């Protein structure tokens, strides 16, 4: 095939004089005309400066008119070294290798090894590398770097053989709706997969300089990703014109981390993501950002730890992964290197700490890669990172950069250029069966009538330690949506503060679980009006649980706690569950359909449901309806009505001291009863007591007073004495035993001291009585408390009345008239 002996000889001659032939500036052969020589010179200069995609078309053009093995060798190298169509390098380099015969230049051997590696021909690659090593063994002038490269690649190929032989236990599919024939990479998701951000490089492989864009896609109602749009990036003037790339996204999807800068000094910035706009771009502090490179950021769900990449001095070489902790002042502390278990002398990139705070995914060129950078996974066990494990299915023989996993550990996202000869990346979704026992609480806070999103802060406290979970969850003001992730078997208190409503306390009990589930929560705050005055507010919490994984263990847990059902009913549930489970699995295995099919499936599900109910009605089949009922995912409602004691917004029913903060709140809503997934829950829990509210809204003339009791206080005292508590015993019994009896608690103070102080004192007295009643299981909603301030007019002091009589709390028990 190669007939040009002269050309070949010149080729061989060159090897003879120089072992290291990389860019082969060829001595011109007779076939080259003047213009062709000029072209060749241009191509060579492109090649030497690394602009392979520019050199390539010229070499190809020359190759079409001139038969020169050197040209073909150059073409092979261009293909191999550029990002595009690397697979084409093999045939050109093979040709060069064969033509060279025994006089083969050493470089051809190791380039051919590289080319084989790229196209997954690992055995062939190993042969070439071994050949190179044995040939250079006799040559003391051999390039030590190239020798090391061959040794490294030998190990890489052996890894690759081992890793690629393991069948993947995952389903991988491209996300059709995102696809745009451009290079999409670096996908980042919020924990609930409602938002995805990614980078799009437009023009890859099209011969011009590609441009990068930050794209956003959101989950639509049908569960498919919307057509991506470019985000609007609001940058202050001095940052404009710098390279800006995505570095990370917070679990709630509200904070974006950006990588901005020029050259080797890039820094991490945080910014707000609202709708499709990224704004309020702020540089992170000097502990994070140094004059070196910083990028790739991932924050834990509690917002206290930031994992990021830096090449600052003191690491293990190249880019390393560091972690910084948020200190008490709310600033990022001096970061720690993750250590040699994670970081190698090569580059580590794109850390992604999973929402469980214990699993990290990152990209590395070190460890056992199968080529280029690969994605690795490591877990933190007893404070130590486990040996990184090659993720396998994401990894190709060239660079693989980002992997993110949703909160349940069920679906992951990554980009790959596998099977794309232009090196364009496509975002893939992977069904990844590794359940992580977390509870994802996702919800909205709405206020007013009609309910609208409102600007609120949610603080979360650990109920046992009373410590605040540091992160303040600020729901999106446009949608009121928030997202939190909790580990199992803990109790939390959410304190929701807003401008126009009183702070509210909501208890959340996260059950012990060994599977993942999601709680959808809707918190509605509504003012209660009587004659156009706000007399209180109502907090409504709606919960829906979704069990993502129902395992046998989980079943046994729920069954142990489930209310007593007739025996046959349990059998029935099991039966139905099993059948559903089986059909589900089958469905998931064959689940490879497109969005259209999913829509069709949803429609079919509704059709099935409609037909099921219609048939049941037609045949009066109440059993089917019972089964359907038992299998329905229920939405739970808890309503707490809370009345202002004195019409002012400054005080409320109960006072709670948590940590360093004091909260005046409605009685806590206890969600602990939601620990049993709804399927097995009895309706007993679901009673809404509306009656107690009637006591609160009743007018004085509607009340039949049945008993009055007065407690007296010492000057400036508001605490209940032991005697007072004894006196209250009977009243408590009366209130507990009689659903129809409510109480009015009126606090008074004397006229000594300041008026406002006395007002507060009277309120405190009344509230302490209420608190004591509530502690003793009296339903707080049956009780009206008022602080009425001074019990007599100033100056009208009646000397016949004992002074103590002014400092009192009156407890009036009443029934409502029909």
């Amino acid at each position, binding site marked *: 095939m190669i007939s040009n002996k002269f050309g070949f000889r010149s080729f061989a001659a060159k090897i003879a004089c120089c072992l290291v032939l990389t860019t082969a500036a060829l001595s011109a052969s007779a076939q080259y005309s003047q213009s062709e020589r000029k072209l060749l010179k241009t191509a060579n200069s492109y090649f030497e400066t690394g602009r392979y995609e520019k050199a390539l078309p010229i070499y190809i053009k020359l190759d079409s008119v001139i038969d020169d093995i050197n040209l073909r060798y150059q073409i092979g190298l261009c293909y191999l070294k550029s990002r595009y169509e690397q697979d084409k390098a093999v045939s050109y380099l093979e040709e060069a290798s064969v033509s060279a015969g025994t006089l083969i230049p050493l470089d051809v051997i190791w380039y051919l090894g590289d080319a084989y590696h790229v196209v997954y021909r690992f055995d062939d690659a190993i042969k070439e590398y071994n050949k190179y090593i044995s040939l250079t063994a006799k040559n003391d002038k051999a390039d030590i770097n190239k020798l090391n490269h061959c040794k490294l690649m030998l190990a890489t190929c052996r890894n690759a053989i081992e890793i690629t032989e393991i069948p993947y236990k995952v389903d991988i599919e491209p996300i059709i709706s995102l696809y745009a024939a451009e290079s999409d990479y670096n996908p980042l998701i919020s924990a609930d997969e409602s938002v995805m951000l990614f980078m799009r490089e437009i023009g890859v492989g099209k011969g011009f300089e590609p441009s990068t864009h930050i794209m956003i896609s959101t989950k639509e109602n049908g569960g498919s990703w919307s057509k991506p749009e470019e985000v609007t990036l609001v940058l202050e003037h001095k940052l404009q014109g710098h390279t800006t790339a995505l570095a990370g996204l917070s679990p709630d999807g509200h904070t974006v981390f950006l990588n901005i800068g020029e050259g080797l000094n890039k820094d991490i910035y945080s910014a707000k993501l609202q709708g499709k706009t990224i704004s309020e771009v702020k540089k992170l502090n000097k502990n994070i950002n140094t004059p070196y490179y910083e990028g790739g950021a991932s924050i834990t769900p509690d917002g206290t730890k930031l994992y990021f990449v830096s090449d600052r001095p003191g690491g293990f070489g190249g880019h390393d992964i560091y972690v910084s902790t948020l200190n008490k002042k709310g600033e990022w502390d001096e970061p720690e290197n993750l250590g040699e278990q994670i970081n190698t002398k090569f580059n580590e990139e794109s850390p992604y700490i999973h929402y469980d705070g214990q699993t990290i995914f990152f990209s590395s060129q070190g460890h056992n890669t199968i080529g280029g950078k690969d994605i690795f996974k490591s877990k933190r066990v007893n404070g130590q990172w486990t040996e990184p494990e090659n993720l396998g299915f994401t990894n190709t023989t060239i660079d693989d950069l980002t992997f993110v996993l949703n909160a349940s550990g069920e679906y992951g996202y990554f980009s790959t250029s596998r099977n794309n000869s232009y090196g364009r990346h496509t975002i893939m979704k992977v069904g990844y069966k590794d359940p992580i026992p977390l509870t994802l609480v996702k919800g909205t806070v709405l206020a007013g009538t009609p309910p609208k999103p409102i600007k609120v802060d949610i603080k979360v406290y650990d109920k046992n330690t009373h410590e605040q979970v540091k992160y303040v969850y600020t729901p999106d003001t446009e949608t009121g949506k928030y997202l939190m992730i909790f580990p199992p078997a803990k109790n939390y208190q959410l304190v929701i503060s807003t401008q126009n409503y009183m702070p509210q306390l909501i208890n959340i009990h996260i059950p012990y679980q060994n599977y993942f589930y999601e709680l959808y929560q809707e918190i509605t705050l509504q003012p209660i009006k009587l004659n156009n005055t706000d007399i209180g507010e109502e907090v409504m919490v709606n919960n829906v649980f979704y069990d993502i994984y129902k395992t046998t263990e989980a079943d046994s847990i729920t069954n142990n706690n489930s209310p007593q059902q007739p025996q046959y009913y349990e059998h029935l549930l099991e039966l139905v569950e099993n059948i559903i489970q089986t059909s589900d699995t089958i469905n998931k295995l064959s689940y490879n359909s497109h969005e259209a099919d999913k829509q069709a499936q949803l429609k079919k599900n509704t059709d099935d*449901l409609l037909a099921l109910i219609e048939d049941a009605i037609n045949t009066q089949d109440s059993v089917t309806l019972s089964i359907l009922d038992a299998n329905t*995912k229920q939405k739970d409602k808890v309503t707490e009505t809370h009345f202002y004691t004195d019409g002012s917004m400054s005080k409320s029913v109960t006072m709670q001291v948590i940590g360093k903060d004091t909260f005046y709140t409605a009685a806590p809503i206890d969600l602990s009863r939601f620990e049993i997934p709804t399927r097995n829950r009895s309706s007993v829990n679901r009673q809404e007591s509306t009656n107690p509210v009637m006591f609160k809204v009743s007018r004085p003339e509607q009340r039949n007073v049945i008993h009055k009791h007065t407690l007296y206080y010492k000057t400036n005292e508001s605490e209940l004495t032991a005697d007072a508590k004894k006196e209250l015993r009977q009243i408590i019994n009366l209130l507990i035993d009689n659903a129809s009896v409510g109480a009015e608690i009126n606090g008074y103070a004397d006229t000594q001291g300041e008026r406002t102080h006395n007002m507060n004192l009277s309120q405190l007295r009344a509230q302490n009585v209420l608190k004591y009643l509530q502690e003793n299981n009296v339903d707080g909603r049956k009780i009206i408390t008022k602080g009425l301030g001074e019990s007599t007019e100033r100056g009208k002091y009646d000397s016949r009345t004992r002074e103590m009589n002014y400092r009192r709390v009156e407890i009036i028990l009443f029934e409502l008239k029909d």
Partner: protein
Amino acid sequence: MKSCKNILIAFATVALSLTAGKARAQYSEYEVKAAYIFNFAKFIEWPADYIENDTIYLCVYKNDPFGIILEKTMIGRKANGKDWKIIRISNLNEAEKCHFLIVSGIKQHEAIQVLKCIGNKPIVTVGDELNNFCNIGGVINFLPQFSERQFEINKDVANDIGIKISPKLLLLAKIISTKEDEF
């Protein structure tokens, strides 16, 4: 014991038919409720001239726990040849045209106001697990999960406002009667 066994067999059969052809099993509470409402329309007759243009107006008063589910269930499907139109209202004056009125998440005293306001118009009021909704004059009320029946019907109110409810539906409901002489 025997009856228990029979029930089990019946359940087993039903369970099979329930899941056959149905892939992703569990429905949410409001998907099921929407499906009930859809089917109610097939077993309820309104006075002859009350339905215009073959369209059933499904109204939701103030609180709407269904969201998009109503549209997904009703739109594009016909109940006894009739199309659906879904309207969300906050003022009862807009309830004029309604065939169904869903009432959810309100207190009893407010529910009484709503029913009073509707009066004798042939509107099928559907309470969403409201306490005593049928006792105070509502037509249909969904009952909480694990109740003996899934919904209750006040057939006296239905009669009074000129709505005919199929006996098939009545047989599955918990019947509430407000006329004392029937006790």
